[in-house]
């Protein structure tokens, strides 16, 4: 780890000024990812801007029934918030599927959005990685890549986004609220994370001088029929091989609307509106779910080690939507709802 300077702004204005003044600065809140990256020499910031003094720690239900989650709300506090558990149980289930209790106690809402990939080669400064050092090449494309992308990758980068929380946020069409020198900007969740393309070093569309202040969720039509299913190498403290946030709005036995977001398979939570649209007007059932899954995965491409993820994703989507239709998330403790075999 290299030495760094720590500054601790008390106001948003001050924080943005620091960002403008120090191009190589990094924001730090919970530090659950950044500190690891600094110890591994992947990140070498000269200045850390500790944003934990900013007043962004509240969870508010607005007049129109929306949920506004402050950027500094801890993952644990959000997951167990009674309003969230009641109105957006998918969020709780996804959060509790991630990391460990100790990490969730430290990790923040915005930090979760901004965590970096867990690609092995990104973490190894001796390996070629375009995300870490643009132009170096990608060791993962021909290396160990069972945990890598099957969708939306480029010949520059096959990394995946590791978050569970973001998969749920993508499914629920969250809005990311950011503050910059020119004021506030609202970014649709689907536009917040990027695909790697030719610049995999950029994970998001956040401008360098902007700070995430909140994440907003509209009142959910999917509080009853939703499910978060996470398939992984062990039952806790492992990133998803494949995860699915599945949501159904069912009226009179017919699907009125649907949301499917896939995690662990791409550089961002993966959605396909055609797949969701295909379910509208249908009765919930395995055939309809399988057809939607096939659409969603139609452009999936395997690497050396991850072909299994295509078929596994197909089955996971059917499984998650079946559970969503049954409303089974409500029948289990939330900590356990995300796992198979309960």
């Amino acid at each position, binding site marked *: *780890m*290299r*030495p760094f300077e720590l500054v601790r702004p008390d106001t948003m204005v001050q924080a943005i000024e620091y960002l403008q003044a120090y191009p190589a600065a990094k924001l730090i809140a919970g530090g659950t990812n950044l500190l690891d990256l600094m110890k*591994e*020499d992947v990140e070498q910031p000269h200045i850390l801007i500790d944003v934990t003094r900013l007043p962004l720690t509240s969870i508010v239900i607005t007049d129109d029934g929306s949920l506004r989650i402050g950027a500094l709300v801890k993952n644990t506090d959000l997951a167990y918030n009674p309003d969230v558990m009641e109105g957006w149980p998918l969020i709780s289930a996804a959060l509790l599927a991630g990391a460990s209790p100790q990490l969730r106690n430290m990790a923040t809402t915005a930090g979760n959005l901004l965590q970096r990939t*867990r690609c*092995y*080669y990104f*973490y*190894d*400064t*001796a*390996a070629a990685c375009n995300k870490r050092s643009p132009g170096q090449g990608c*060791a993962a494309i*021909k*290396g*160990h890549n*069972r945990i890598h992308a099957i969708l939306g990758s480029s010949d520059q980068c096959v990394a995946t986004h590791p978050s569970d929380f973001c998969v749920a946020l993508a499914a629920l069409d969250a809005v990311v609220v950011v503050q910059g020198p020119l004021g506030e900007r609202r970014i649709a969740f689907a536009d917040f994370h990027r695909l790697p393309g030719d610049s995999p070093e950029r994970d998001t569309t956040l401008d360098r001088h902007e700070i995430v202040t909140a994440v907003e969720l509209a009142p959910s039509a999917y509080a009853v029929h939703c499910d978060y299913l996470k*398939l992984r*190498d*062990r*039952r*806790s*403290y*492992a990133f998803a*091989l494949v995860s699915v946030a599945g949501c159904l709005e069912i009226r009179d036995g017919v699907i009125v609307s649907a949301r499917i977001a896939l995690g662990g398979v791409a550089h961002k939570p993966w959605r396909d509106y055609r797949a969701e649209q295909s379910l509208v007007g249908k009765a919930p059932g395995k055939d309809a779910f399988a057809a939607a899954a096939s659409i969603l995965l139609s452009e999936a491409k395997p690497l050396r*080690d991850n072909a*299994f993820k295509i*078929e*596994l994703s197909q*089955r*996971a989507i059917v*499984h998650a939507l079946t559970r969503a239709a049954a409303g089974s998330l409500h029948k289990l403790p939330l900590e356990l709802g995300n796992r*198979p*075999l309960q």
Partner: protein
Amino acid sequence: MTIAHVTSPTHIGKPVSRYEGMDKVTGRARYAADFAAPGMAHAVVVSADIALGRVTQLLTAEAERLPGVIAILSHLNCPDVAKGDKAYQDQVSPPGSPFRPFRDERVMFDGQPIALVVAEDFETARHAARLIHVVYEQDTANTDMSAVLGIAYKPPKKRFGMNGVPGRRGDTQDALRVAHPRVDAHYETPPAYHHPMEMHATTAIWISDTKIHVHDKTQGAQNSRNYIAAIFGYSKDDVIVEAPYIGGAFGSGLRPQYQLFLAVLAARELKRPVQLMLTRQQMFSFGHRPQTHQNISLGATGEGLMTSIFHEVVAATSTYEDYQEDVVHWAELLYATENASYAYALTKLDIATPSDMRAPGGGLGMFAIESAIDELAEASSMDPVGFRLQNYSERDQFEDRPFSTKELRSCFSEGAAAFGWQHRQAGGHSDGHVRLGMGMATGIWEANILPTNALARRHSDGRIEIETAMADIGTGTYTICQQVAADVLGVSLDMVSVRLGDSRLANAPVEGGSFGAASVTAAVEAACKALKNKLESSARDIGKHANAPIEAEGGSDPYYFKTAKALLGFKSHSTYSHSAVFAEVAVEPELAAIHVRRIVIAVDAGRILNPKTARSQIIGGATWGLSMALHEEALRDHTSGRIVNRSLGEYHFPVCADIPDIKVIFIETPDTKLNPLGVKGLGEIGLVGTAAAIANAIYNAVGVRMRKLPITSERLFEGLVQNERHRTIGSALPLKGASA
């Protein structure tokens, strides 16, 4: 030797809580890197990030300029140390030329230490290590075992202490040709790493140019002492190595590791104390459980009587040492056949030398054997337990002699009853969309005893002190020493204190191989008995020396260790512990998800000195067996020759949620042919057999034979998809070994 004075023990056999438990949970117990000395400097290792080549330049100027940096040591300025291999060999070295840090510019494995930065504080040392730029001339490393299977060789020199490979009995090829049923299967196991919670660390305190005091993470304080003395030219009496507490080691602390060499080197050079702790990533840079490829062929008659065993293993080793362990002789101890043949070969890779890792050899070989036996039982249309009973070997066919004790039948019956084995159905059963399966396997481990000494001292106030250099690697050695001493001397536990893990104390070997308990308690018993005799005979003189402590030494006096010849393996009986492991798994075939629901393990490990610490040992071993079955694998990128999942985030082992209820049953028959207390040892037996029991349970649940570890989602998934396609259950792959 009699055990008359402990036939009705007060403390032995009781679930006494750990002697050092309070020290450990309150932080009073100090580990190697918890020690400090005035003026102590901190060291950080610079590790090679290539797997083969030469260091052509070490650019250290920027690091040297950093305030607080004291020295940067490497092959370029390594002070004079021993040159021959002999000085670097230790109690458990395999044949070959041991790794010598900073020997020259060559890089032989990924993560090899190539420089050491010493600074006034840890942060500076760590920062400086990042500023060193290494220029390499890189060669193409071969780390892919499948590429060198064809050039496997029989190790020319057997590693000391090994049982070795059994000779051929009968005509296996002929017997296999006519056998029906017959099973031929190929198994693969990955490289795996110990990962004790405490990373390897050494605090080396310089006393004078001829004396050094070392706190080391080691399973053998005297082994580390001898190593340091030989390499740096100290007199053995002038090197003190202490390791009273070890935060797990599992074999990684048997051989002196490079942090010991480097810390002592720096302390000697700088004439001040130096502390060095490896990082978690650097814990992937030395010993590990070797990768294996195994072929097994088994034959039986139509009545389910086994006729032949063939077991062939190729294991990976480094380019500079022939690391060996007993992977293949186990079937020879368990299954009575007319014909058997075994082979064990090594193949060299550009990796660090493997090392003993919990249940070395046995854990690997028994996964393959017990998986194949399950297949043969099924092919014989027999229950797996019934099949094992029908082919039960009363004799050790390898050494052709009887067992001292073998309570495996009781392990089967009591384990099966506690598990509910009678409810097992061929083909498992369903619970909703989940498939449930039951599987079992036999476990076996060598019960051994090595010459060990202990000292017992009685103070005038009646307090007893027990001392031996033997380590407690977290297993409960302190506690059993205390229990034995209290019983022999007829005092309460709180009158007995125990000192372990100090090279100055009575001679003891490294603690490992499940021989620790048998060896050390026999020594403690002998020392206490000698003390008792001394006290009785000097009772009339006691007035003269009322305040002087009285001490007596004693050594474990195993019947068959009395001569040098005996030491090399002559015994009248074979001594092994046994177990039967039963596992129930749930599999969700649709998602290739596996969860082990429960494990029952019945263990014959002779007399149980302390059922509380003994149970912990077995639970730990069984958990590691589960880990081996489902989780652990070091992934090496063969282009770079480097391990890619070098963190506990990506190198997976089970979390608490993966570990089911584990019921432990002890079949207690003291084995007094092995040692006076009848102890057989517990360190490895919990692991051996567990992986096969789980793999066999998965087969029972979903009809897929998992022959490559770990059983990951994709491997199970592949098997399930193939099954769906072919609907042929358990068809074995053709093998080179069987037809050879």
